[in-house]
């Protein structure tokens, strides 16, 4: 797209959208939101970038290699956090019994493993949205 208004407005909007998405992800356990909503916002900002600046520039920001790493890394992170609980407390995905830091209720650093899992879910959802979009526009008609 070669419209100067759209290009400039996109350039202004994208950092705010991504900061808002990350805010929603890391505040998921004390306020409405969480990994799914925040990840969808971050993924949508990357889709907007690809739509406005074209696939070539979008490939530089988020290549196939990055999407592969983020896709499998999200699940591996989730399973790793679960395995910590399995080794320490004897059950898969144990939260406070496995010795995750408790923190003060209402702070960002609270809830044991819940923020860690939310970050994993956010990475997974964001990379899934952008890589599905890339697959369809790359390999489509």
């Amino acid at each position, binding site marked *: 797209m070669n419209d100067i208004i759209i290009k400039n407005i996109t350039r202004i909007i994208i950092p705010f959208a991504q900061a808002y998405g990350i805010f929603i992800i890391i505040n998921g356990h004390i306020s409405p939101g969480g990994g799914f909503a925040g990840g969808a916002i971050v993924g949508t900002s990357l889709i907007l970038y690809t739509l406005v600046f074209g696939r070539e520039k979008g490939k530089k920001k988020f290549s196939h290699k990055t999407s592969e790493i983020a*896709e499998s890394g*999200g699940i591996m992170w989730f399973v790793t956090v679960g395995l910590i609980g399995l080794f320490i407390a004897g059950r898969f995905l144990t939260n406070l019994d496995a010795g995750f830091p408790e923190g003060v209720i209402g702070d960002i650093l*609270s809830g044991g493993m819940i923020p860690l899992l*939310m970050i994993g879910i956010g990475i997974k959802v964001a990379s899934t949205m952008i890589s599905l979009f890339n697959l369809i526009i790359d390999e489509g008609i």
Partner: protein
Amino acid sequence: MRKILSNSLFIILFIILVYGIFQMPTGANINAPAYNDIVNHYLNSGVSETNASNIIAAILADYRGFDTLGETIVLFTSVVAVGSVLRSTKYDKEVRDHE
């Protein structure tokens, strides 16, 4: 004629479903059947058991964390399936060049 018939059929289906809803034990209050013991347990002792003030996040990542793991696997599987359907193979490229 055919359109009128099909539309009236869907209106009849809608009326039947609404009639079924009127028989449901609804009522948006805490005495509804869906608001059972397990909900009260989550609401009363969820914060002390997980230390997260958002009960939905606590259920999503702690009580039902295995469910969420399956959910991420569904997302991963969808990406793999779409890739395997859409990615053009060597054979496809040869056929396209041949044409």
